[in-house]
């Protein structure tokens, strides 16, 4: 009898627990619904209320590994947590290369953050994997018209903005003015001029121009893209297939092979972006292609050279105006797995408040240019001594940003564009030609076929 009573009581308890579980989960769902829709439907009163009651823990993955940037973001997070005592922001940093591995494996195991930085080429993959949420409401809140149209477009699919650009930069040609002067050379405007000058400057322990094609990065893709895109071509066809066998692409491949042979250290066959930049930072190369991040690199490695570095637009085949620039609008995304997208949105908004934003941009002056119009004209932004010293460089880079896109994004955002940069097939192609002596057209065709099969697999 006692056993029966006990089992009845246990059954009752379990039933209650189950019911209360259902109830609480239903309640959770109800309370979660407005969170999920927070970027779309937002009455201002409701939102203010929600902001006032922000509560929860979020994880923010970013790749701002250098000291000042890391500190500025941490300060912004600390300030946000102070204003919202029930919120905790946990920041984790990764290098850009590690980040890709981190989120792809994380997605498979359900271990992704609430919000993160990303590379433009990866946003399409994230959208394709249904991993991130649209941020239309957030962008409207910050002010849609404040952002450059190109920057928003390359992070949007079917009218939805899936990421918000935090800062921008454009690829330009960096030169060593002292070496040019010493050798009576002008800043090159055509690719041929660049080759001739780089070849002439390859002496006395200096390399004219390093051509990086390490297979753990996408630097060779970047360099080939400068050549092709600047002439109005693309590494993707209009129907989003790899395009490495066009006359222009073959010409570009041959050009960079010539540079590698005559102007570059042979070790650059294994270089990634940092190896490549380090050579310029240390005064070992006369020319390089990069964004304004070169300045902080030179300042840290060879401050004596700071007076001799400057940048100019990337050459073209005939020295005429560029028909395509490579830019990068560094995106912030919110992950679908996040339980608190409303906290992420509120935090992201604070990053665009003028004081915080300018301070963040000043952490790598000229390297990170505003993604928001008007900031570059503000007194607070202009007062940084590096920005003043490198006014010409800042002007050159800024002038490129409005018309540029990321690699392959001249046809709009696509998974295929991401595959161009993320799979390192073009780097392997260059290595194959250099190391095994494979014929250029054969290697280009093989690489094109490999890219196309990867693109097909990714879009099935």
């Amino acid at each position, binding site marked *: 009898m006692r056993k029966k009573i006990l089992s009845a009581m246990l059954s009752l308890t379990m039933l209650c627990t189950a019911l209360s579980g259902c109830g609480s989960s239903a309640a959770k769902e109800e309370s979660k619904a407005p969170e999920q829709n927070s970027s779309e439907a937002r009455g201002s009163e409701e939102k203010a209320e929600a902001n006032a009651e922000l509560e929860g823990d979020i994880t923010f993955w970013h790749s701002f590994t250098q000291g000042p940037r890391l500190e500025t973001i941490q300060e912004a997070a600390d300030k946000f947590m102070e204003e919202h005592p029930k919120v905790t922001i946990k920041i984790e940093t990764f290098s850009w290369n590690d980040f890709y*591995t981190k989120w*792809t*494996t994380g*997605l*498979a195991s359900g271990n992704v953050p609430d919000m993160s930085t990303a590379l433009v080429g990866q946003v399409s*993959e994230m959208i394709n*994997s249904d*991993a991130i949420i649209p941020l239309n409401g957030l962008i409207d809140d910050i002010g849609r018209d404040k952002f450059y149209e190109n920057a928003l477009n390359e992070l949007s699919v079917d009218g939805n903005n899936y990421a918000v650009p935090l800062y921008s930069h454009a690829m330009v040609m960096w030169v060593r003015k002292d070496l040019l002067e010493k050798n009576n050379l002008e800043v090159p405007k055509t690719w041929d001029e660049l080759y001739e000058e780089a070849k002439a400057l390859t002496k006395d322990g200096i*390399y004219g121009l390093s051509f990086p094609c*390490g*297979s*753990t990065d996408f630097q060779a893709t970047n360099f080939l893209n400068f050549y092709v895109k600047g002439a109005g071509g693309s590494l993707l066809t209009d129907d989003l297939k790899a395009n490495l066998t066009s006359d222009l692409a073959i010409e570009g491949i041959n050009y960079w092979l010539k540079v590698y042979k005559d102007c570059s*250290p*042979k*070790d650059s*066959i*294994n270089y990634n972006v940092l190896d490549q930049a380090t*050579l310029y930072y*240390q005064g*070992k190369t006369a020319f390089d292609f990069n964004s304004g991040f070169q300045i902080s690199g030179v300042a840290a490695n060879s401050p004596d050279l700071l007076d001799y570095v400057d940048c100019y637009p990337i050459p073209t085949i005939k020295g005429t105006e560029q028909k395509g620039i490579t830019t990068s609008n560094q995106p912030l995304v919110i992950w679908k797995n996040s339980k608190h997208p409303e906290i992420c949105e509120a935090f992201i908004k604070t990053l665009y408040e003028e004081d915080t934003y300018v301070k963040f941009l000043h952490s790598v002056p000229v390297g990170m240019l505003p993604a928001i119009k008007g900031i570059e004209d503000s007194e607070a932004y202009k007062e940084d001594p590096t920005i003043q010293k490198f006014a010409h460089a800042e002007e050159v880079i800024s002038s490129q940003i409005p018309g540029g896109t990321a690699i392959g994004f001249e046809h709009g955002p696509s998974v295929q564009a991401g595959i161009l940069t993320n*799979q*390192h097939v073009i780097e*392997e192609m260059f*290595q*194959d030609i*250099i*190391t*095994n002596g494979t014929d250029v057209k054969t290697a280009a065709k093989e690489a094109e076929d490999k890219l196309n099969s*990867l693109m097909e*697999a*990714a879009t099935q």
Partner: protein
Amino acid sequence: MKTRSYTKWLFVLPAVIVVAALFIYPIFSSLFFSMTSKNLIRPRYSFLGLKNYKDILSDPKFWAAFLNSLKWTVYSLLGQILVGFTAALALNRVKLFKGMYKTLLIIPWAFPSIVIAFSWTWILNGVYGILPNLLVKWKIYETAPQFLTEKNLAFIVLVLINIWFGAPMIMVNVLSALQTVPQDQYEAAKIDGASALQSFQHITIPHIKLVMGLLVVLRTVWIFNNFDLIYLITGGGPAGSTQTVPLYAYEMGWGTKLLGKSSAVTVLLFIFLMSVCIIYFTIMNCWEREENK
């Protein structure tokens, strides 16, 4: 009547659970995924049967990586045994500062592979590396040699780094085994007029061959599966010339995100290494039986 006690099984249960979770589950999940179209970032996948295996086995890149793995394992293992064994024999005879020499020789083994990889990458860098610049300065080379970017040289350099890294482990183990050889056997052999080579062949080798056998088994598996050193130093390049099977599997799973195919590679790797281990253990069992006769 004797009652059976199950208490002992209770004590080993936690270990059994851990082993099951950490070893058996991954093996079976790899086996399962190897027969599917599983993609790293896509939730849906379909059953493909043995298609992934067929694709892998007909990929020339896989066979190139497999050949590289074989060469990498054989050369590294032979080098490590030769250097480690010689160092152990030498240390066994040293009387003064034995501890200091032992510590100095074990240093490479004590460092994490990331430190070793970056140190060697820096030392061998063709632009500002110490070694290439010294070779040019001493006029041994006209221009800085490309230790890590010329395909044949890169492979040899990697093997040499691996020998330098792995030999201390062989040395320490062989030295321990050498110290267990009874000295009176050497003395008796000497009295009987045995030469040093005969003593080595008939006393030293029989005493240490089981330890050596076990070391060879372990090192074969570890070297064949080595990923970090190669990935960090050359990334498998240039042009795949240093790509081994683990790097091939990584590229397949994490590069192209084809987790199904990557799993198939790891299953093939598992089968191959299991076969090698079975052969090794059969030989060792024969040795043991002979010894017990």
